[in-house]
């Protein structure tokens, strides 16, 4: 689905954020990207949808080479990539519904978006998604009236209504409490399963990464230093990624998943 070849990014400030990164994510795979602050995780996923322009290298989405697209073609390609942000990045002064529908902006014209005249099918899909994440009654609330967990679920709806092939998720839980974090991670996982989406999830919480994904990639100073299953994250590997520390307490038993189901979040799509 996604193929990254020898990706390099050097910021004008001189920071070499990515060095020859090679990565392939097949269809339907949820991949967790871990690494210390400043390792280049955000840069990596931003180079995929070119919110940040890579300095060198190629990125393919399916057969489409994203890195050579013109502005106009890039806009069309971005519709196939949903993005979820750490601080939710909802438009605070718009309603929940407007925020969700803004995920369709790539498909509707300027005047339609000006007058908020989205196609009926888009609106129905928006309601379906809001219902799916348990925010049906919140549709007409303003985004800044919601709690962090609720906002992130709106952010997820906005990404999914694009009907993407790939999700780019930048630290979805960094501003949330542990329980909400798990709920959000579980939700993203379920939704990816339902739609067989590929996803890259940047995450700081190693335990959460182990719980929710089958593949973990470790990035350190712009280079991939680990790529494998969560079980193989040994203290030695973590030291390679993050540096020296006592890791025994951090590494979880991968089996202890699915202990308590949250009723509103995990209810099956109806």
């Amino acid at each position: 689905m996604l193929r990254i070849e020898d990706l390099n990014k050097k910021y004008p400030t001189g920071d070499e954020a990515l060095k020859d990164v090679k990565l392939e994510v097949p269809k339907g795979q949820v991949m967790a990207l871990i690494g210390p602050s400043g390792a280049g995780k955000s840069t990596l996923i931003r180079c995929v949808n070119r919110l940040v322009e890579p300095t060198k290298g190629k990125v393919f989405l399916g057969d489409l080479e994203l890195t050579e697209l013109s502005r106009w073609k890039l806009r069309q390609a971005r519709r196939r990539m949903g993005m979820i942000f750490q601080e939710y990045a909802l438009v605070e002064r718009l309603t929940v519904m407007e925020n969700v529908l803004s995920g369709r902006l790539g498909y509707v014209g300027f005047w339609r978006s000006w007058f908020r005249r989205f196609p009926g099918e888009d609106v129905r899909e928006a309601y379906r998604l809001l219902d799916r994440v348990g925010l049906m009654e919140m549709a007409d609330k303003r985004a800044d009236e919601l709690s962090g967990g609720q906002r992130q679920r709106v952010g997820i709806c906005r990404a999914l209504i694009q009907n993407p092939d790939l999700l780019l998720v930048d630290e979805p839980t960094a501003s949330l409490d542990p329980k909400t974090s798990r709920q959000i991670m579980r939700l993203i996982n379920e939704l990816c399963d339902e739609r067989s989406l590929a996803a890259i999830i940047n995450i700081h919480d190693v335990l959460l990464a182990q719980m929710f994904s089958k593949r973990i990639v470790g990035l350190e100073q712009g280079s991939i230093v680990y790529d494998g299953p969560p079980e193989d994250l040994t203290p030695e590997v973590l030291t390679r990624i993050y540096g020296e520390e006592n890791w025994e307490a951090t590494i979880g038993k991968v089996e202890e998943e699915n202990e308590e189901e949250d009723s509103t979040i995990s209810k099956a799509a109806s």
Partner: protein
Amino acid sequence: MPKIDRSSGLSWRKHTTKKELTIWLYWLIGLSIVTYAWNLISEKTIWFFVQDAGTQAIDIGSRMVPPKLSYMDKLWQPVWDTINIATIGTIIALIIAVPVAFAAAKNTTPHPLIRTIALFIIVSSRSVNSLIWALILVFICGPGIFAGTIAIGLRSIGFCAKLLYEAIEEIDHNQVEAIQATGASRAQQMLYGIVPQVLPTFAGVGVYRWDINIRESTILGLVGAGGIGLQLNGSINTLAWTQVSMILLVILGTVIISEWISAKVRHAII
């Protein structure tokens, strides 16, 4: 530099002797300028007239009471004109200020050169007082409401555009990026990412400027640009002091009402 004089025990002085002397020198220069300026004013003033200013004020004051209430019949139209000048002038200014502001803001300008032009428009509009604009416009398009309205408009463009472009520069960029990531066009990014964030400022600046313009438009009549100032000028020239006091009362009332409205509106927005 602080200096420690050890011979007489520990003493502390904020400034060195040299610096102290400089400070005294500056004081001396400053005082000389004030004295010189005072002499200049004194020479150009006919003190004989100033001496009886008190009695004159009391004299005019006494001639002003009671205000000529019946004159109100002739004031409704000029008051209406004044309000129209302010309102239409503000609307014109806002319509022009919006594109100027987007061109002047660092994060939305299409080109640095266009930014320079926009900033130049802002500065030139702000540096000319509306009374001077009116004076020029009365020459160009003849006396009357039209000249007044355009004068108010020209003067307000800079004010509105400046406050607006500062607000545009201070928006949360993440919200715009999130919209960009959906594949939205640049126009749509503005519509969904930027406009909602600056709309409150826009409305606030609009009513604030309208409130200022009501006050400014009351004097435009002095140079023949329409509004209640015309009556004021005429009444002063004919020494009709009871009419003058009536006009001043009406202006006071109008300003109080406009301020009340603008406070209400701004309160409602925030």
